């Protein structure tokens, strides 16, 4: 992908590289020209890679001590917490790591929304990202079931029951998912298997995600195409490596705070009660990162339509590159879009909040309005905005603040004259 061919210095290096061009790959990765104006919102890609690896390493260790059996799962988790050397540390990193992973992925997604990173020519990167996000949700949900606490059991019951909304075959699918007529041992063992599998699927997709990124290169805060390599870019190493490293360390401080000082604050107390099929918890609440979608699900009175709405809320993101008709990527030059962007952020936070509340009265009303607005944003506001919005003049390059990259070149020039 880089313009000049990399030639190893040593004889052996050359011999090896001719047969397996690992050194060429390494050289591509270190020299990879990156826009030099990337801000800290761009560091979350690296942070997410760290999260994935952390989850895999801690997860493997936990799997060595965990017992996937309905009668022993809860006890084996307590065994990890009490008797396994540093088991408490590994489990708390893994449990809070899931939350940190989602925190980072939401920032990563919303960064993309703000700077229009999903637009041509980066649609495939974006769609792979959405698939990764979906797999993350599946992995997180199944992982939450494994300790076999009350919330594990009832969460699994509620979510798997959603499939029963499918006409005709729904009930059959649910029985098939459960491996029986209720959530029980077969459900637990298959969830464990899938929970173990999915992270490696994600890892594969992450490789594709990065590969696809390295074809057009990074988007950047002003959203213009950058000539690579040029004065506008810096090599990935050391510039981006050190910046990502710095941001990662900041992130790790927050992470450590949760692990060491508030390890259970993000979980639900009921999950420290062993699963009991005869006792339903007062409120069945998913983990915080699934709450906005839970709110959308409950805001629709019909079960099937609720499920459809929830799935659409995620899948609609995959169509975003085509729903957003604006040619300008970055919200920096889209004054109206910028406002709608922040309204969307608020909308999603509100959905998350009402998702944690009982679905009744005012909460339900708010959830409905927020759900309607969510879809309105993508289906109506974005397509129209792209066509109608008067965007600000876009610079031609990062280093030289010359205007003229925007379609409304004339307006830009006029403005410049006025300023002078």
């Amino acid at each position, binding site marked *: 992908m880089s313009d000049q061919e990399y030639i190893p210095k040593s004889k052996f290096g050359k011999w090896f590289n001719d047969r397996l061009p690992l050194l060429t790959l390494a050289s591509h990765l270190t020299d990879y020209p990156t826009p030099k104006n990337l801000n800290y919102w761009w560091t979350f890609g690296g942070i997410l890679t760290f999260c994935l690896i952390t989850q895999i390493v801690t997860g493997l260790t936990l799997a060595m001590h965990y017992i996937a059996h309905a009668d022993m799962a809860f006890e084996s988790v307590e065994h990890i917490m009490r008797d396994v050397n540093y088991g408490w540390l590994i489990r708390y990193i893994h449990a809070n790591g899931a939350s940190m992973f989602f925190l980072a992925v939401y920032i990563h997604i919303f960064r993309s929304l703000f700077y229009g990173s999903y637009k041509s020519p980066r649609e495939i990167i974006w769609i792979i990202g959405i698939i990764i996000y979906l797999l993350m949700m599946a992995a997180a949900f199944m992982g939450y079931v494994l300790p076999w606490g009350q919330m594990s059991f009832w969460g699994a019951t509620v979510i798997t029951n959603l499939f029963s909304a499918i006409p005709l075959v729904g009930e059959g699918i649910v029985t098939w998912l459960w491996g029986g007529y209720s959530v029980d041992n077969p459900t637990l063992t298959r969830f464990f298997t899938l929970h173990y599998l999915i992270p490696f699927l994600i890892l594969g997709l992450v490789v594709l995600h990065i590969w696809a990124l390295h074809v057009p290169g990074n988007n950047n805060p002003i959203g213009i195409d950058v000539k690579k390599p040029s004065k506008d870019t810096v090599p990935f190493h050391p510039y981006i490596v050190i910046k990502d490293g710095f941001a990662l*360390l900041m992130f790790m401080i927050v992470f*450590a705070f949760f692990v060491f000082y508030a390890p259970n604050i993000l979980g639900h107390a009921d999950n420290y009660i062993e699963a009991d099929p005869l006792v339903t918890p007062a409120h069945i609440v998913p983990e915080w990162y699934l709450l906005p979608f839970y709110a959308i699900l409950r805001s629709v009175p019909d079960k099937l339509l609720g499920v459809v709405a929830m799935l659409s809320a995620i899948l609609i993101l995959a169509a975003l590159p085509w729903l957003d008709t604006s040619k300008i990527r970055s919200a920096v030059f889209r004054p109206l879009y910028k406002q709608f962007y922040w309204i969307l952020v608020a909308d999603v936070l509100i959905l998350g909040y009402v998702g944690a509340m009982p679905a009744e009265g005012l909460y339900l009303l708010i959830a409905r309005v927020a759900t309607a607005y969510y879809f309105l944003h993508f289906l109506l506001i974005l397509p129209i905005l792209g066509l109608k919005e008067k965007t600000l003049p876009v610079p031609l390059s990062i280093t030289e603040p010359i205007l003229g990259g925007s379609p409304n070149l004339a307006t830009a020039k006029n403005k410049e004259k006025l300023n002078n």
Partner: protein
Amino acid sequence: MKNFFKILLLTHFLFVVSLSSNAAEKVEYLKTDWTFKGLFGKFDRGSLQRGYQVYTEVCAACHSMKYVSYRNLAEKGGPEFSVEQAKAIAASFEVKDGPNADGEMFTRPGKLSDKFVMPYENVKAAQAANGGAYPPDMSVLVKARGGGANYIYSLLQGYEDPPIGITLDEGVHYNKYMYGNKIKMANPLSDGLIEYADGTTASVEQMSKDVTTFLTWAAEPHLEARHRMGFKAVVYLIILTILVYFSMKRIWSRIETEV
């Protein structure tokens, strides 16, 4: 950069607010000065040892603690009884073991490696003996209740006569901190109920505090190690972050761009 922190702080704040409002309860729990809270929080050894006494003399009649072993009583970060004391405690319990070479089950005195002996053979037996209500296992009880230690501490002191207009069934008691206010457990504590080995006055408040401390340790036996390691980890990370920050500044100064 500044903007970044502002937004990060804001989202963090929103996050915490939504969480705490999520966990908000209708009743305000009683609070006390727990020594195990905070960055350097440690358990009060005396309180833990007294708490064990309350548990074993009062609670253990009905409540099991099936994930805790007698050896834990002598471990660092716990009540820290001496090994001899813990052995004596274990030996004072009869443990069912077997089968032996003749295929018979037998009882023997407890050993350090044994889990706390349960008051009932199984859940059904526990329910049968307690009017249908299962006295929950106490090993992780503090973590299994929304209000944590404050909740347990309050509940033990929350027994009251029911307000006018509320009638209670036979064997049901009124407790202002219990979810739904109705509890099957009779008020377990009264002033002077037990005689503390260390001579502390056994008021209801004192016993509630001690047993809650003990249960908090039982639910989180490595809390002290966690706090110690946490402090080291955070200090280490902060120093490393500062070093990396200056390295970054230096590296980026080669090109004329603000980081």
